């Protein structure tokens, strides 16, 4: 592997990692702050991608589609929290798992009814449809760089929101003691609703910006969900910093697992078993630190 290919793979790995971070950060916030395990989180990623697909056809612009899509995603989040999730706060995780599993079935099937089961593509916006040439044969698409940049901006924005604003302070307080925050006169129900909607919007937005490079297909949400679980487990529940680090790590491991070749005793291990790499990584982390890299000890 020469230096240029290596560079491209590193960029791809980081870009994939940053995308995972967008989805996983919402998941880890909802887990850490609200104590809700949300299996349907990956589904919102899929919803985002399909919104990008249908709205960009409708408006003729991916930008308008994204703007409209985020509004719809926030609305979906608010309604779901109000209608269903809010009934789960005092119940066992088991019921949260089942209810959100039911939501997956509903959303997957609605997707099948509305859009069918075909794979769709979304066009890259005009002015980002260029590539930076590296050598005569290799080049790197600007859209992917733009994706990484957007993810980074959102990550910084989220850090500032949680650490530096009044709203963020209330959110952090709500995570450690729900009753106390409530008795201080803060509307905790509204706060939770906002956090949930924020998580849904982040996942859907990740789906929207990923649509042009990853195509839009059935089951895409569940694939992302499980990888994001691995990210959250490695990073530690509730830790946005941990999610960032773990997501980049997973992005790189997954990307290099697919391009490296490794034979052990004549049996092709990589890339054939690259799908298992991230789980091996998770097993190692579990052995060393069961609570995750940045998790609090239970």
């Amino acid at each position, binding site marked *: 592997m020469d230096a240029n290919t290596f560079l491209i793979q590193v960029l791809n790995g980081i870009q994939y990692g940053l995308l995972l971070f967008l989805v996983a950060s919402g998941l880890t916030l909802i887990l850490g702050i609200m104590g809700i395990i949300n299996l349907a989180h990956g589904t919102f990623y899929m919803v985002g991608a399909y919104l990008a697909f249908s709205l960009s056809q409708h408006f003729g612009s991916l930008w308008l589609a994204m703007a409209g899509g985020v509004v719809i995603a926030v609305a979906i989040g608010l309604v779901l929290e109000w209608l269903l999730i809010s009934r789960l706060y005092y119940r066992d995780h088991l*019921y949260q798992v*089942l209810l959100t599993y*039911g939501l997956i079935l509903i959303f997957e099937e609605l997707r099948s009814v509305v859009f069918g089961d075909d794979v769709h593509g979304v066009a890259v916006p005009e002015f980002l449809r260029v590539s930076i040439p590296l050598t005569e044969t290799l080049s790197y698409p600007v859209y992917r760089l733009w994706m990484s940049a957007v993810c980074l901006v959102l990550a910084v924005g989220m850090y500032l929101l949680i650490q530096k604003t009044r709203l963020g302070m209330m959110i952090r307080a709500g995570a450690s003691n729900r009753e106390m925050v409530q008795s201080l006169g803060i509307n905790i129900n509204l706060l939770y609703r906002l956090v949930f909607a924020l998580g849904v919007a982040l996942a859907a937005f990740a789906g929207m910006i990923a649509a042009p490079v990853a195509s839009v297909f059935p089951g895409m949400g569940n694939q992302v969900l499980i990888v994001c679980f691995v990210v959250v487990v490695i990073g530690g529940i509730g830790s946005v910093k941990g999610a960032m680090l773990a997501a980049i790590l997973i992005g790189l491991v997954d990307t290099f697992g697919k391009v490296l070749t490794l034979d052990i005793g004549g049996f092709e291990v990589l890339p054939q078993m690259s799908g298992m790499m991230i789980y091996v990584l998770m097993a190692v982390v579990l052995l060393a630190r069961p609570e995750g890299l940045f998790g609090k000890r239970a």
Partner: protein
Amino acid sequence: MRGLRAGTVVLLACLLALALLPLVAEKYYIQLFTKMMIMAIFAMSLDLLVGFTGLVSLGHAAFFGLAGYVLAFAAPQYQAADLWLSLPLAMVCSGLLALIIGALVLRTSGIYFIMVTLAFAQMVFFLFHDTKIAGGADGIYVYAKPVAAIAGWEPFTLENHTHFYFVVLVLLALVYACLRLLLNSLFGRVIVGIRVNEPRMKSLGYRTFRYKLVCFVLAGALAGMAGYFAAAQFGFVSPETLGWHQSGSVLMMVILGGMGTLTGAVLGAFAMMLVELGLQGLPVIGGVEIAKHWQLLMGAFIVCAVLLLPQGLLGLGKLASRLRSKPAEARDG
């Protein structure tokens, strides 16, 4: 004591009804009930974890599916496997996998446990999905049903659907009885104690990790038994049999029936499969093929069940009897 005896009578009546079913039912229904009883064994094995030990596993299908693959390997093309060899082998393989996964996942608890079991099951899924060891994503056929010959004598043949039915029925009753005995023993008390308050059990001197691991392995091996017969009956194994939809649906069976009761798991498995069958058989209404999109209604059913039936179907029965006997108290509670 009276309640217990009434319960036993109902149980025996159900068993008798199941034993008499092949006399009156057609082949289709016999096979359907065989499938339901296989899933009931699977659901009971998960109930041991979820309902009794308090371990919510979202990766239980890994052990179910692996046993199916073991059968497929044990029965090379067009050759039948030996039941007496391949069944224990399949259960041991599933148990071993459960030992490896369990040793890792039991280091965590709560939300972590749910996510980690799902992730490891997914790893097994990718092992069979991405590599070519067993047909990859296309799956693998089990051409012939296992043969149960003892030195040339065949007490029963699984190719006969009635024989298959009775084998599964006997196993269902056996698994139920063994689990009941286990749960009534000291071991059973300890694992229930772990669910209720693990630190207390630890301070009483029990090595709770070992108890949980034994449960995890046992549940894995029993799931393997169910998976073995599911593969034998269906004649086909694909990565989907160890996928997470399978894990989610068996968890739903346990909760739907009422967890921590064993009978609830059996009831839930039967109910869930009947609901599934009912939804798949829905007619075309107003030009919309509802049956084609049965998963949509299944999702709605699950959401409603979680919100409206926190105690499962068995809880519904208890609620009804309580309302009848002590209406005032029930209203207050």
